């Protein structure tokens, strides 16, 4: 079906799944971005209300805290897709070919395992607050919606990691194939180039992995 028989061929199903997942990830990142804008506006309302009308937003801190889950977790899978979670690349950067893909594969499998563990644990954290009850300190907002966001966002990340495992496995088998939908290691100069592109907002063009 895929490149295992034809190293230079394009694994169509994989690419299609990558695209679909990418759209969901983009949506989550968009929600995160919107929540940041909303936080900004709410805080401005809070300042104006408190200063000029003697009426602060009731439970402003509670509200902010619960809403924070949106931008703290929303973009997590997107960030993994574009290789945005920081790491040290000095040692890894010396690897080439199959050795590099094996190292990348092992790294992603480890993340995949720990994320699975955290999905399990954070689900129970949500479930306790939903079934037994939990509320915020000041105005008593229920905390379960915010807690639910964690296993959901991590599940999306887990799907992305599953994709990347496939992507790297494919490269381990065929080290010369074109890397598709996996973040590719950069030397310091290319990393710098990316910082530049980010600062100048030019990476909109190659979304969906830096390959």
């Amino acid at each position, binding site marked *: 079906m895929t490149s295992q028989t034809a190293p230079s061929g394009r694994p169509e199903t994989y690419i299609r799944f990558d695209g679909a997942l990418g759209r969901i990830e983009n949506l989550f990142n968009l929600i995160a971005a919107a929540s940041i804008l909303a936080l900004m506006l709410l805080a401005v309302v809070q300042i104006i209300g*408190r200063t000029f009308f*003697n009426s602060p937003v009731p439970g402003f*801190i*509670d509200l902010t805290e619960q809403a924070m889950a949106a931008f703290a977790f929303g973009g997590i899978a997107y960030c993994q897709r574009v290789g945005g979670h920081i790491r040290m690349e000095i040692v890894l950067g010396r690897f080439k070919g199959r050795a590099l893909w094996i190292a990348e594969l092992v790294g992603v499998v480890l993340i995949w395992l720990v994320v699975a563990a955290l999905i399990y644990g954070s689900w129970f*954290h949500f479930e*306790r607050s939903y079934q*037994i009850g*939990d*509320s915020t300190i000041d105005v008593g907002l229920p905390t379960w919606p915010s807690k639910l966001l964690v296993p959901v966002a991590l599940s999306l990340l887990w799907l992305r990691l599953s994709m990347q495992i496939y992507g790297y496995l494919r490269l381990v088998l065929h080290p010369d194939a074109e890397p598709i939908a996996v973040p590719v290691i950069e030397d310091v100069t290319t990393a710098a180039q990316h910082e530049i592109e980010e600062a100048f907002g030019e990476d909109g063009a190659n979304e969906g992995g830096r390959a």
Partner: protein
Amino acid sequence: QDVTWNVSVWGKRRAFTEHLEKLNELLAQKTDGKFKLNIAYGEALSKSRENLDGISIGAFEMAQICASYHEDKNPTLTVLELPFLGVPDLKTQIEVDEALYHHPAVQKDLARWNAKLLMSSPMPQYNFVGKGDAPKKVEDFSGMRVRALGGIGKAMETIGAVPTTVTAAETFQAIDSGTVRSASFAPHAHLSFKTYEASNWWTTNLNPGTVNCPVVINIDAYNALPDDYKQALDSSVKESLDHYLAEYDKVYDQWYKTLDEMKIEQVTFDKDELTAFKHKAGEPLWQAWVEEMNAKGIPGQELLDLVQSKLN
């Protein structure tokens, strides 16, 4: 058999945690050092608001919690945090707490977290310090921006004050800059957040309410204890609390010394005025609480009556 229990508490070692230190000491004496508590300060084992989660998971065996940090986790305990109940001192607070902790509805509430109530950590009443004209009667709080959370916040709202959320650490600055005019804490918290440095008055006996912060233990861990260890634990509670009260007396001494040094006006309300507070800012919220509990299938009136019976 050596047993070490992990104990999750927040903050540093202070009067509020001295009953745990004493308990550890007494357990060592009674079990030849075989039953120990590893008291982990500073939220090393869990964030304070998640201590019940940690107990329910079995991550640690003992923890201190405060009911109002998460009312829906422990609705029955919040009766002790209703405003203007009229608790005069810490000794009475312990008696009220113990009566309530033995009520089956309360034990059932905590058992949902696999938790059992061990003892109280009685907290002083949250009186106000503030800046500007000192309030003398109920109406003086009208329009005043106050730092008061939860039940006290709601109570102050019924008499026209404006509860404003400010984190504890920012309270000094908030009073100093006029973001709020006054703030309610227990004396030790006023001392550590230095709210008095920005203020010129203090309400000695408004006693608007406080938080209720029991020490809880994991039921399975308790049941797994050998009988003599159980006995050692249960029999040490009273002495630990006596030690705790002695430590709090020192805090009060320090507090009143500070008030004198800073020349802070001590506002004492007379009985009629306190009754007015109770009628206007307390009782309506008590009724609301009872109805809320009834809706949850918790015998609210019974719990409130139990508390009142210990106070009158």
